[in-house]
């Protein structure tokens, strides 16, 4: 027999979702305009989007761009961040560049990039690449910087060369921090993906959303928001499972879900 408190903490997430839907439903009924459908109307539109071949192709194209942009960004950013963390010269060369690019919204570069590369896949993948790179570089940098010097000395005493120390000590030791950066990067990839498709409207999930908006199909607009949100939650959860497996050695020895009971 569960106590009331345990029941609440067990079903907290579900309660929060139901609560949000109730508020949405209530607000939609109160406002009673065409541009704000009730949650039921929005949810009802989801199967017709996912059942439509063209929409599916669009969404898959979005995911493909996102995967390539994210993959290339991670492959470039991790080595760069690690080298910055271990070499003062490399860090002082790249730091100013990153400081300047950090606060610039990557979507704001989209018009310029479209001028160079057109409105196709390449421009969008480049924006995603830029959006993902910074958090991954930053966290790899911090992770590599925080490594205890004596750990590297121990490796050197065993005969590891500088390159081997980088690959076999710095990389695994910084992995928890690197993966934290990748997780942020993954969510940013999704955000930049949708934004890029809103600006360069040619295909993709963001394009479906804005086309529906133009045509006044507000249930489809909200349904797309739900679909994109669900993709984000799904990707994040999958990545979190992968992360927990890769760095289980660094997790604290207990496993208690957040609760203040």
């Amino acid at each position, binding site marked *: 027999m569960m106590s009331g408190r345990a029941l609440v903490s067990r079903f907290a997430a579900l309660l929060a979702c139901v609560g949000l839907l109730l508020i949405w439903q209530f607000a939609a009924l109160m406002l009673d305009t065409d541009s704000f459908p009730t949650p039921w109307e929005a949810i009802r539109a989801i199967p017709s989007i996912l059942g439509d071949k063209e929409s599916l192709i669009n969404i898959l194209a979005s995911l493909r761009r996102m995967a390539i942009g994210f993959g290339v960004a991670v492959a470039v950013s991790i080595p760069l961040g690690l080298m910055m963390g271990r070499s003062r010269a490399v860090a002082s060369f790249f730091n100013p560049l990153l400081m300047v690019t950090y606060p610039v919204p990557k979507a704001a570069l989209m018009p310029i990039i479209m001028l160079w590369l057109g409105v196709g896949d390449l421009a969008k993948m480049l924006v995603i690449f830029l959006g993902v790179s910074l958090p991954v570089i930053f966290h790899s940098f911090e992770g590599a910087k925080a490594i205890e010097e*004596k750990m590297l000395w*121990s490796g*050197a*005493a*065993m*005969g590891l060369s500088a390159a081997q120390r980088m690959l076999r000590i710095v990389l695994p*030791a910084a992995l928890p921090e690197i993966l934290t950066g990748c997780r942020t990067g993954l969510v940013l990839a999704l955000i930049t993906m949708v934004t890029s498709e809103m600006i360069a409207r040619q295909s993709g999930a963001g394009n479906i959303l804005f086309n529906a908006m133009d045509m006044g199909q507000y249930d489809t607009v909200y349904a797309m928001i739900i679909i994109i949100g669900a993709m984000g939650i799904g990707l994040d959860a999958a990545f979190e499972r992968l992360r927990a497996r890769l760095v289980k*050695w660094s997790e604290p020895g207990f496993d208690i879900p957040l609760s203040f009971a």
Partner: protein
Amino acid sequence: MKAVPVPSRSNVEANAAPVRKPVAAMIEIDQVSQVFRTSGRQDHLALSEISLTIGDGAFVSVLGPSGCGKSTLLYIVGGFVSPTSGVAKMKGKPITGPGPDRGPVFQEFALFPWKSVLGNVMYGPRQQGVKATEAEAQSRVLIEMVGLKGYEHFYPKELSGGMKQRVALARTLAYHPAVLLMDEPFGALDAHTRTRLQNDLLNIWERDRKTVLFVTHSVDEAVYLSDKVVVMTRSPGRIKEIVDIDLPRPRRRQELLLDPRYQKYVVDIERMIDDTSEEALRP
């Protein structure tokens, strides 16, 4: 003239075997000084013209107040830090960098947190090209020797400080260094754990009598473990005195604590350190 033989694998192994060719001086430190350049402030002279010879198989402690440069001296012998002037030699050859002939054990343990106890101990032998099965067998023996049988598959974060330091010792012994460099290895441990590790270290050392350079700020620890105690002064770090500890081995802690000779060494050395700190206070 005959060419100097290049040390081959078999030579190295011969050194690790119980019957060793005695080398008069394992480590020679010759006029070593270390200056740390600090931004803004005056340059800091950490070590001033240190000369010290450590014989093969000797257990030598370097004792001094914090900030006397004793750890820096150990890092120079390890090849982790280059001296500003002077030279440190290992078996007659100048030390230019770290190498598996000198195995460090640090106060901070510096274990590889992503490797299990077994993975940490096997790391050195594997790096040296020992086959996985053989490296594992050797490592299991060492893990048992340091009293951690049954913990082979634990990660460092799951171990206490004393256990971590046992793993660090086993990890270093695993690649058969000719010299152990111990940098305040028991400094972060509680008194009880510290005593147990000192006893275990002595037992292990008395089996194969490796050369040990041991840095500490504990007078009891230095006298209990060492053949020779190097007492240092602070700012700049200089050798004040080298005391030969002429106490019988194997040493047993309880007997030693009651031994008036042991007590006299401790009191004499404590006086030396008191003198040096007064000197340091003088303007």
